């Protein structure tokens, strides 16, 4: 196979942050492509490369899924370790490193929740910079439900069947209500996606303030969603007929 066949669309020149400004092999200057223009050797992706840039997508939340797939598959082919099996160790290592980064980037951007979490981290520097107020009412609700769950788990089938049945019905109803709430949170998250995408990429203080408001709003929904998701998982595990109480200490 010729070395040119697995190159991505090199007609488009992209401004990509590479690990080095010179080709590691022939020392010629790099123009921000994945392959050296002179010796055609694969170049290592910079660890600082953000996932949107890596997959050639704008930093938007309602992203073009088809474009994501296409770029991912094209780049996967160009970096695939199979093509480098006969190359030297340096190229093999670059192929592996690039493939790993590309896979993580793709997985993160494909999932809407992970995509939002990633964008928040990217924009806020670190998610910890965005502080949302703890949802006290939700905590109370969760603690109360967990108490019921504990009682339910402690009652073995056969004895206190009436109480067990009563709790089971209550917990199943709560589970449905919470699943509906989780779905509602996800649609509210989608609304924030639209708000984010409508804002310009760069702007003055007003734009920055609007951006911060959307990021904080998303962070709040995401945090509350995580609490709800956990309790729903516990409810599903405990009230499903498999018998496994579903508690997992390894998460």
């Amino acid at each position, binding site marked *: 196979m010729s070395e040119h066949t697995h190159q991505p669309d090199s007609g488009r020149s992209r401004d990509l942050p590479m690990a080095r400004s010179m080709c590691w092999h022939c020392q010629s200057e790099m123009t921000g492509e994945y392959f050296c223009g002179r010796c055609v050797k694969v170049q290592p992706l910079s660890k600082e490369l953000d996932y949107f840039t890596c997959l050639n997508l704008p930093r938007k939340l309602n992203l073009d899924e088809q474009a994501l797939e296409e770029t991912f598959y094209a780049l996967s082919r160009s970096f695939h370790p199979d093509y480098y099996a006969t190359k030297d160790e340096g190229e093999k290592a670059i192929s592996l490193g690039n493939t790993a980064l590309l896979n993580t980037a793709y997985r993160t951007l494909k999932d809407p929740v992970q995509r939002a979490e990633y964008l928040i981290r990217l924009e806020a520097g670190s*998610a910890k910079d965005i502080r*949302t107020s*703890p*949802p*006290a009412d939700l*905590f*109370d609700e*969760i*603690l109360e439900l*967990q108490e019921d769950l504990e009682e339910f788990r402690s009652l073995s089938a056969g004895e206190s069947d009436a109480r067990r049945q009563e709790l089971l019905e209550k917990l199943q109803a709560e589970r449905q209500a919470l699943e509906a709430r989780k779905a509602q949170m996800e649609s509210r998250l989608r609304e924030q996606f639209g708000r984010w995408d409508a804002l310009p990429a760069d702007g003055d203080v007003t734009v920055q303030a609007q951006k911060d408001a959307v990021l904080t709003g998303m*962070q709040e929904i*995401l*945090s509350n969603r*995580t*609490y709800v*998701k*956990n*309790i729903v998982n*516990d409810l599903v595990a405990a009230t499903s007929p498999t018998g496994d109480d579903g508690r*997992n*200490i*390894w*998460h």
Partner: protein
Amino acid sequence: MAYSEKVIDHYNNPRNMGSFKKDEEGVGTGIVGAPECGDVMKLQIKVEEDTIVDAKFKTFGCGSAIASSSLATEWLKGKTVDEAGQIKNTEIVQELNLPPVKIHCSVLAEDAIKAALNDYKKKADTEGETEEAATPA
């Protein structure tokens, strides 16, 4: 990932699991959560004459969060309110040998202690005020 012996021990034999009535005299309640993992922790202290005479917790989360709060209740007993405020998450990390990815569990325990102490102080202040108001000088 392997947990340390101490974490496993606290997970299997949690100390002071349970709760007090929130409105009981001298009780301070702290409820906190970790938005990254969704763990929820409730930690309560019972104070008599500025000393924590009892502490209880309920944690719904991973083994490290349970162990961190279990250990915290052990440490809280017998401490004064001020001493309790000095407990640092790094001490919990050290005692339990928590790996870097589980440090946030110890932070959660420290936050829970602070929240419980604040709740106690707030309650003590308002109780003091009503007592003063009730007993004319």
